């Protein structure tokens, strides 16, 4: 994948779950080598959208193309790293044992384990059982797993939730440096102030894209500086159009 172009292209994506439409025809792109923030309140469909990208979600319609292939294509399985909202690692194994196993599944070099443990700042706890770690530490083990094999696209579902501010800053620095090396990052959050770290934003509300663009573009459109306020204004604007 070249640095130019789109890492992800979504066209008319619809997802129906339990007879209810969760995503109503999403059109969106994620620029390669960028950090794109997927923002929206809880229940807006962020997780469902991310699951579509990694190919674990049954979709009702539309097209999702990831790194030039249809989402879920077997060829993407080593090229996309995915972190679910709740840490998906084995609590009855140590940090290193978890990562060694996932590295074996991904066909990543054993030396990669040490690299990712360092990247998420868990060297001190590498030989501890995941079950003995705090929630934030477990989340970082889960993140480390997604970094194995240096995937071209990272899909992160609320990776910073519940972390203390210092750790959050460290993780955003990590994301920024990964993006600088060419990794595309799509990260969801319901905290608007995380939007400032992103080059592009995708605002999701009730299963539809409310707006997408760079933070500055969105600020300009809404005519306010504060990103939280931008979101409010855009919601009001879209409600007004619906009524008109």
């Amino acid at each position, binding site marked *: 994948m070249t640095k130019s172009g789109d890492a992800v292209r979504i066209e008319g994506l619809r997802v129906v779950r339990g007879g209810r439409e969760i995503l109503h025809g999403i059109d969106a792109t994620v620029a390669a080598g960028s950090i794109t923030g997927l923002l929206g309140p809880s229940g807006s469909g962020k997780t469902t959208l991310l699951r579509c990208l990694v190919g*674990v979600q*049954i979709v009702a319609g539309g097209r999702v193309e990831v790194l030039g292939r249809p989402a*879920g294509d077997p060829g993407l399985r*080593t090229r996309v790293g995915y972190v679910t909202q709740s840490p998906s690692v*084995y*609590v009855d194994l140590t940090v290193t044992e978890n990562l060694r196993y996932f590295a074996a*599944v991904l*066909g990543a070099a054993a030396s990669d384990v040490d690299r990712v443990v360092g990247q998420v700042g868990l060297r001190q706890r590498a030989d501890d059982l995941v079950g003995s770690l705090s929630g934030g530490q477990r989340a970082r083990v889960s993140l480390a797993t997604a970094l194995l094999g240096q995937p071209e696209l990272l899909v992160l579902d609320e990776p910073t939730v519940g972390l203390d501010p210092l750790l959050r800053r460290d993780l955003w620095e990590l994301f920024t440096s990964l993006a600088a090396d060419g990794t595309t990052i799509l990260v969801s959050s319901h905290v608007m102030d995380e939007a400032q770290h992103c080059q592009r934003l995708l605002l999701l509300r009730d299963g539809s894209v409310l707006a997408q663009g760079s933070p500055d573009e969105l600020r300009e459109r809404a005519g306010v500086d504060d990103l939280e306020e931008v979101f409010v204004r855009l919601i009001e604007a879209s409600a007004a159009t619906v009524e008109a």
Partner: protein
Amino acid sequence: MSAAITFATARRVLGQLRRDPRTIALLVVVPALLMVILRWVLTNQRHNFDHIGAPVLGVFPLVVMFVVASVATLRERRTGTLERLLTMPLHKLDLLLGYAIAFGVVAVVQVGVSTALALGPLGLRVAGSGWLVFGIGVLDALLGMALGLLLSAFANSEFQAVQFMPAVVFPQLLICGLLTPRNQMDAVLHGISDVLPMTYAVDAMQRVTTSSAFGAAMAVDMIVVAAVAVAALALGAATLRRRTA
């Protein structure tokens, strides 16, 4: 499919078991303890113990393995590790065979201990070879494990998973020929028992009890048990879905 991923999975599952010594103890001790109780219950009925000892030696590990395995993929699903693995280059059979190998190792220890105990201190007398009793026992345990893994894919909660045992295992236990000879059962039940795998598991043990020869009927029994175990694993892999609602 990849042998490297399969063995990595087996090692990972054994690593998890190692951290859970109580489960290991239960897996190994429970079938052995049940044999002791059986011998005790039949203190003055040596003949009866010899008669049902070997079949029971096959049934206990089958049941225990079924229960353990039926929670396995459910656990992976609930912790989200299954979804993560399915986004990775892992074949669904890699996962199930990995479990099968890990539980197979446990089955060898489990059946080894209870067989040695039954044939040694408890004085179980069989016409055939003790090694054959051991081999059939391991095969039976593997059958239980494979059926458990298959049904695990259908369980949405621990409550459901645990209920599969009485639902799937008990009816087979009743009509497999352990309680009463199959040729004395109603034709319908006899017909049903013909297509249930535990029938063959128990039949193999009954043959080794009464005959020292390794005949064709015995071979058929063992092949059926092994084939059903393999089919259950393949079906289990087919029922795991990468995409879910």
